[in-house]
């Protein structure tokens, strides 16, 4: 394996500390890995500007790179192009559902988001029973990227990775 491929594999396998079933590559937080003149550079982007997991992610990236034999790593944070749930890798959706976190539905158009009130079943399926009879309890959940939902079918409350 080339040095770059080794570095990419090592860095790409770092898990998100708050959604531990996903790697930062699957989540779309990892933007770019390069190796110029032996100097490794990793470019990442936050899901939300204030995401407190970013510091842990930076440390974990440096640790993973060090273990793979890259000591002097540069980690660059970019905001553009902005992260959206469209950056989620295809395999991420099924992993989220398996962890009982409903994957994001269609990204809302701004005009929808600005309507007053909470959403009623905008295509969000209950990750426990699969029912589509769900409603949003609160647009803000356990982390910046999730909202709280309740299923009318089985009565379970669940997290939903906000379409963003």
């Amino acid at each position, binding site marked *: 394996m080339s040095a770059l491929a080794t570095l990419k594999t090592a860095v790409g396998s770092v898990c998100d500390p708050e959604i531990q079933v996903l790697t930062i590559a699957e989540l779309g937080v990892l933007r770019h890995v390069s190796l110029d003149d032996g100097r490794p550079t990793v470019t990442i982007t936050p899901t*939300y*500007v*204030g995401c407190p997991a970013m510091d842990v992610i930076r440390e974990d990236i440096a640790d993973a790179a060090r273990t793979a034999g890259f000591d002097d790593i540069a980690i660059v944070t970019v905001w*553009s192009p902005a992260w959206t749930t469209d950056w989620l890798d295809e395999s991420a959706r099924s992993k989220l559902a398996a962890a009982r976190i409903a994957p994001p539905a269609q990204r809302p158009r701004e005009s929808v988001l*600005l309507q007053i009130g909470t959403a009623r079943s905008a295509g969000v399926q209950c990750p426990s029973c699969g029912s589509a009879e769900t409603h949003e309890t609160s*647009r*803000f959940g356990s982390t910046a990227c999730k909202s709280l939902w309740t299923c009318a079918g089985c009565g379970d409350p669940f997290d939903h990775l906000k379409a963003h």
Partner: protein
Amino acid sequence: MTDYRYLLRLGDDSLVATQRLLQWCTVAPQIEEDVALANIALDQLGQARVLLSYAGELEGAGRDEDSLAYLRDEQEFTNVALVELPNEDFSVTVAKMLAFSAYQHVLYGHLEDSGDARISAIAVKAGKEVAYHLNHFSTWAARLGDGTELSHARMTSAIDSVWPWTHELFRSDEVFDAAAAGGYGLDPAQLRPGWLNLVDEVFASATVSRPLDGWAPEGARSGLHTEHFGFLIAEMQSLHRAHAGVNW
């Protein structure tokens, strides 16, 4: 060249809004609301951090986000008074944050086209977050305003009491003039028509009339803050000032 004082203004608004919102932590009316207000504060803090970091770099005097947040004195902060006003009852917080998030929504919408690429990237990112905040406070304003007799009375009085403090959001001065002339920012007076459209729609759902314009307190932008502000930042800064350079 982008004037760092423009970034300070935007960053200070977010930072002070964060500190005030956090006072709801553990005492909000519902557990979901507690979580929501803390999340919104976290978004505001994230925005404050990128804006203040950039301000520090542009100033070039070696100040980072922490020294700007923790080591400036009261008169050096350039946030509007609106975000430093006490939380009082929940309806007042809703009224303040409705006004502020509608302002940020319009502001960041415009700043997406900023001639400063870094401001533009921050605006795209922050604008997405602020849309959620605006939705949240609009929903509460409508629910309380169009609720019971008591909640309607409280929401109406909250909007009336907050209204005079909203005018400062749209006041121009030499820093804003320079930002508009330099193509990286804009004259805040331009934002008011778009802002009025947003809040008028919410007021209609809340069955509350828009207050009349009149008294328009000012001064916080240039460092003359309300009597509440010193206490607020003393609490925010005490740890850092007691233990210089403290980090997580």
